[in-house]
């Protein structure tokens, strides 16, 4: 068993002919929070979308090289099984509009036809919502439609939905970029707490956020992984000029 939960070796991704990710070598240890930074179009989102194989849903998208989850080649796994192990929260909150809050949380079970008793369901819903710090706000309105919640609450609902499946990795694709500062702060706190149980990869444009919540940071530029390491190191003493420029706001 390797120590890294996620390991990329000479990993490349393409959209048609354009080379999006170039020779990425990267290891993610268990129970760490990784911030993935870089200017727009540098391939950060593509990278995390490769981890749960959402990348290949775009016509013409292909990959090369090796990407392993717990030592198992991701691109040889069944995508459906893989996605149950890798939770994802998107840029914009996207709860299922036809479902109640309760059903949204256990949507992963309902939709996959996993039979649960009422008690098990209640337990999963309560635990997931508690983990997502939403339980106190919605416990009396669980039967209401998820879309009636505010944007920040909806995003936490989406986090709860991802957590209910008990994923090994949680991917956050700029999950706070559409939210106000208070909701953002709540989600950041949440990330801190979730670290003990989950491994988190978060894409962010917000450098303060990366500095606040992540243990490790990876800096992408033009499809290459320029630098990765301890967040503190990268922010105080980056090895590469590009990283330095980006962090200090010279470009990007």
């Amino acid at each position, binding site marked *: 068993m390797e120590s890294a939960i996620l390991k990329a070796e000479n990993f490349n991704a393409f959209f048609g002919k354009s080379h999006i990710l170039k020779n990425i070598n990267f290891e993610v240890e268990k129970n760490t929070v990784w911030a993935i930074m870089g200017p727009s179009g540098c391939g950060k989102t593509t990278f995390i979308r490769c981890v749960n194989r959402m990348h290949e849903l775009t016509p013409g998208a292909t990959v090369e090289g090796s990407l392993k989850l717990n030592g198992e080649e991701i691109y040889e796994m069944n995508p459906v099984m893989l996605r149950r192990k890798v939770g994802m929260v998107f840029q914009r909150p996207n709860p299922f509009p036809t479902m109640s809050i309760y059903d949204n949380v256990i949507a992963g079970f309902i939709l996959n036809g996993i039979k649960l008793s009422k008690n098990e369901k209640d337990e999963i819903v309560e635990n997931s919502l508690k983990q997502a710090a939403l339980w106190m706000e919605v416990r009396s309105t669980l039967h209401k439609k998820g879309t*009636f919640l505010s944007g920040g609450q909806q995003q936490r609902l989406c986090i709860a939905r991802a957590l209910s499946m008990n994923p090994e990795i949680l991917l956050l694709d700029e999950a706070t970029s559409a939210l106000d500062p208070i909701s953002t702060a709540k989600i950041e706190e949440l990330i801190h707490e979730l670290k003990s149980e989950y491994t988190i990869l978060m894409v962010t444009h917000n450098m303060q956020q990366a500095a606040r919540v992540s243990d490790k940071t990876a800096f992408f530029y033009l499809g290459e992984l320029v630098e990765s390491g301890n967040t503190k190191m990268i922010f105080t003493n980056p090895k590469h000029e590009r990283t330095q420029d980006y962090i200090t706001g010279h470009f990007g």
Partner: protein
Amino acid sequence: MNMQIEKQIAHRNKKNKAFKGVIIAGTILSTLPLLLILFYIFKQGITAINWDFFTNLPKPVGETGGGVSNALVGSILILLVSCVLAIPVGIVIGIYLSEVAKSRLAYYCRLAVDVLQGIPSIVIGIIIYEWIVRPMGGFSAFSGSVALALMMLPSIIKSTEETLKLLPESLKEASLALGVPYYKTVLKIIVPTGISGITTGVILSIARVIGETAPLLFTAFGNPFMSTNILKPISSLPLIIFNYATSPYNDWHQLAWGASMLLILMILILNIITKIVQRKWKVQF
């Protein structure tokens, strides 16, 4: 300086008012014929409508108290069967077109749907006559249903496709990212979210074919007696209107007016149901 600006603004306000007036006048002008038609049909038809009208069979000329019960039952039966035929097929094709929007098959399919929409209803009648009535050895309600189903298909397909295309991609991604297989994502997330648009399309397509006469002339044919056998000729409201209105008898004219009014009421009700569906089942993102 100020005076000038004020003058200009006053002038613009006048122009705005004039423009608004023209628009309102145009709207009234175009609604008027519709209202007149409705008014006339109701005026003529209302006297024919009574209990007998709904419960009795047509009577021979000279006898009073004839009704259109057979046509009403026939119309409903034909429509039910055509719904059973057209709705599943239409929705499936609509899903295909929205999901695999760019394939070659989708391109030709869309083209075919557009052409199908433009085919005159009488031509569809003739074709069904050749394909179904002749091989089956006689006129039947079923062949009429197939003809109407063909006419319903385009609008069901289009409305399904358009509705599903408008759903955000993020919805599908949310489901796929939870490890839900593709077919379940479509059946349990995409279709339920678009159900109000799909239902609207289905109901409007029913409203569109409910008054079709031409395709039924060669297929359902008509029947002066009550029939619920879909393999036998059957009467329907448009057919009865056609037959009675072209007859020389006053009584029958009266029945034709009554049937016209009934048909229009049914279309009105279907449209109201559509509005209710749109409001009640509206999905908020």
